[in-house]
Structures are given as structure tokens and as C-alpha cells.
């Protein structure tokens, strides 16, 4: 009976984990470039039933096992493309397809992000919302927020001066093989060990990639998880009722 309670508890606990993750997804529905997370459940090891006091009729005891609950701690990220939304802001850049922007912090550490909401500071740096600087190839900080500049889909940045285009730098997009090894750093940033410049890219100036959270899916998942939670609490309740029945063998 104790085992039923532990199984039920593991189910309650994992469902609770999943609700936490779902609520985090919903909270980030407006976070640019956010990729939804889900909990991957897996069963725990199977235990033999060949134990003291359990009546067994079969001589072959190899296939007499019962599982011991569920584990729901492993997170799975969904890297699918988020919705591209027009903002009309010339410092907003969205990546269509795969890839990441590379940003640098004050200590020279590199991070990767899909959030393309940049700003140009007084020194001409492209600043990410987290305060980190966007890496731009061959760029001499010679743009200001008032300049009329164009970011081409391959990443080339041109400054429009008196009707002529002047190449001022190139925004590279990085590809990371093994996205699941990305380490989440908060503020939409990831750390990665091996990232390479991606050859063909498709950037869109004046657009932002929204999160790929689908509210309908999250709410459905929430309902399903809530029902699973209820069902698990019911097994605990049933175990409790049965325990009471056993305790009342010599009752009254």
C-alpha cells in the first residue's frame, strides 16, 4: 500500500513540475525569440514482485515486475520557428529559419540569442535588451539611431548617405549543432561551446520573432496535466481507503 502512495506521489510531483513549466511558457508568450519547454516524462525502474508474502502461481518469475512511478524532470525545448511580426522599427531584426545572433558581454564572454530587438547606444553599439553588444563583422561603431541604414537578408548592413549605399558591417548568424546542449542563461540568452557562422541566412529588418508558445496548446496541456494530477490523487485516495479497510479487519 505504501508503494501505491509513492507511485501516486511521483505522479503528483511530476504533474506539478509540468504545470510549473507550462506556466513559465505562458508567462513568456510575449518574450521575443522564446522557445517553449516541455517536461519529458519517463517511467522509473521495474521492481520484481517475487517478494515475501506475495502469492505467486507462476514458476517462471522473470516477467513478474511492477513499475515504481514516473519521473518528470527532463526538459525538452521546442526550437521551431516563432511567429514573425512586423514592428517597423529599423533596429529590429528577425532570423527566418535556423540560427542565432552572437552577443558579447563586458568580460568578452559570448552568448547566443534569437531575440532581435536591438537598440543603438550613444557609442554606436547595437545593444541587446539584456545590455550585451551584438557582434558585427568589420563594424566601426559608425551608426547612430538617426542614420538611415538597411540590413540585407544576408546580414550586410548598409548606411544610406546622400542616396548612396555604404557597407558598414555584416551581422553574422551562427548555427549551433546540438541545440539541446545550449545552456540557458536567462534574459533570452544561451551559452554554447561550438557555434559556426552560418553561410546562408535570411534576416528581416523591421521584424521580430515572437515566442513559439501556442496558447491553445499550453492550455490543453494544462488541462491534461490537471486531470492527470487528479487521477494520481485518486490512486492515493484509493490506497488510503484500502488501508483503512485492512485496518478494520478486526474493527468495531
Amino acid at each position, binding site marked *: 500500500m505504501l508503494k501505491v502512495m509513492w507511485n501516486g506521489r511521483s505522479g503528483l510531483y511530476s504533474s506539478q513540475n509540468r504545470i510549473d513549466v507550462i506556466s513559465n511558457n505562458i508567462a513568456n508568450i510575449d518574450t521575443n525569440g522564446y522557445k517553449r519547454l516541455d517536461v519529458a516524462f519517463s517511467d522509473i525502474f521495474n521492481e520484481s514482485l517475487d517478494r515475501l508474502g506475495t502469492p505467486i502461481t507462476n514458476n517462471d518469475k522473470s516477467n513478474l*515486475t511492477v513499475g515504481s512511478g514516473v519521473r518528470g524532470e527532463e526538459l525538452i525545448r521546442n526550437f*521551431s520557428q516563432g511567429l514573425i511580426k512586423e514592428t517597423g522599427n529599423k533596429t529590429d531584426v528577425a532570423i527566418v529559419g535556423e540560427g542565432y545572433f552572437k552577443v558579447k558581454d563586458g568580460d568578452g564572454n559570448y552568448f547566443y540569442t534569437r531575440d532581435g530587438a536591438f537598440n543603438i547606444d550613444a557609442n554606436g553599439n547595437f545593444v541587446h535588451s539584456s545590455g550585451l553588444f551584438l557582434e558585427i563583422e568589420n563594424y566601426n561603431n559608425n551608426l547612430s539611431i538617426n542614420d538611415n541604414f538597411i540590413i540585407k537578408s544576408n546580414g550586410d548592413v548598409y548606411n544610406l548617405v546622400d542616396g548612396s549605399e555604404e557597407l558598414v558591417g555584416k551581422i553574422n548568424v551562427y548555427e549551433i549543432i546540438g541545440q539541446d546542449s545550449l545552456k540557458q542563461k536567462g534574459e533570452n540568452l544561451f551559452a554554447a561551446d561550438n557555434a559556426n557562422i552560418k553561410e546562408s541566412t535570411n534576416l528581416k529588418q523591421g521584424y521580430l520573432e515572437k515566442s513559439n508558445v501556442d496558447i491553445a496548446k499550453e492550455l490543453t496541456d494544462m488541462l491534461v496535466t490537471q486531470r492527470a494530477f487528479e487521477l*494520481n490523487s485518486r490512486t492515493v485516495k484509493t490506497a488510503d481507503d484500502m488501508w483503512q479497510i*485492512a485496518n478494520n479487519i478486526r474493527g468495531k
Partner: protein
Amino acid sequence: MLRGIYTAASGMITKQVQLENLSNNVSNINTAGYKKQKVSLKSFEELVLMNKDKQVGDKSFPRRIGTIELGVGIDGTRTNFSQGDLEKTDRILDFAINGDGFFTVEDENGSKKYTRDGRFKIDSEGNLIATNGYKVIGLDENGYEKTIKVNSENITLNPDGTISGTDNLKFLITTFEDKNQLLRDANDFYNSKADGNPVATDIKQGFVEKSNVDTIEVITEMMSIMRSYESSQKVMQSLDETLSKTVNEVGNVR
């Protein structure tokens, strides 16, 4: 009378084990690719009761009274491998088997394990891995087995079963003639003593196979387990009362 109490107890214990199993199925109701398990019960072999009451002269003859059953025991646990529902997730690395077979993976010692859980990841070396780190095995065009290595950021499953973004590998889907010999391992994996056969099955990208645990079945089974537990308890109680009568009241002079 004592025999009867043990028979009732065997009923209670087996119901308890059935509830253990059921609670495990319930806790895994959201586990991708989970296959429900069932505990099957069987009564112990019947015994024949005889006595030698019948006496003719100085000889006694055996007389068959009938049979007696000594309660119930657990006969086995069986996995129900029926197909689970497919849920669309649009995640590129989610794969679901629609039909027969198992994804084949390799643990750190190189031994094969089988699973229906197709939620994969790509590790930093580019290996396609199961959520717990086991490498997924594929087949190349010559039919050789290879762990699947991914060359690009993402992979696409082609209609002919090859996976682009890898060296034109296919998933190695293994099927077994006798699925009952599969032993459950931790984390949704199965071990097999015998080698299975590769099979071409319909695999869907962007889908997850849900567990095949059915809520309605769970609820009804839970109720019937509890009620029959209660019945066994009542049987035990009345046997105990009868026993109490024989012990305490027989021989009393009123």
C-alpha cells in the same frame, strides 16, 4: 477455517499488487510511448479432498469429498503494446511510430535497448540521443547499423524514411515476434534476450505517441479493485467471527 482466512488474505494481497500496478500506469499517463501493464491473477491448483470413512469389515475405502481451492496468486505481468494516440507537437525532433516496432538505441556499453518514446535531442557532438542520453541507431543505405549523427542544425524525415541532415540514414525500427519476452528496463526502455528484425514502419515527424493508458479503464478498474478488496476483507472478518465462536462458545454451558 484458518485455511479460509489465508485464502481471503491472498485475495487482499493480490488486489493490493494490482493497485500498485494501476497506480504506476496512472503516474505514467503522460509519459510518451508508455505501454500499460497488467497484473494477471490465477488461482492456485485445486486440491482434492478425500477421507477414508467408509469402512466395510476391517477395510476402509477412500471417499472423494470434493476439491478445495487455496486462494489466488499472481501469474504474471503483461505489457499491452497497443498503439497510443499520436499528438502533434511540431517539434522537429519528436518522432512517433505509427504501427509496429521500436526505436533502437544503444546504451553506454553498446548494448541495444528498445523504446517507443521518440522525443529525441541532439547533443553537443551532434549525436541524436534519447532524453536520457542513449544514442539512437540508424541504418545506412547498405543496411549497416550506425548511430545517427546529425550534420546540420535540424533534420527532416523524408517520405522514403531517410533522414536528411544525416548521412542518409533511416531509423532502425526493430520488431519482435514474441513481445512478451521483452523485459522492461528503466526510463521507458525494453531489453530483449533475442535479436529482433528490422521493419519498415510509418514514422511521423513532429508527433509524439501518447501513453496507451486509458482513463475510463483506470477509474473502473480502481473501483472494482477496491470493492473486491473490501469483499475479501468481509470474508476474512466473518471467518474470524466463526472462528471466535468455535473457540469461545463451543462447550459453554448456559
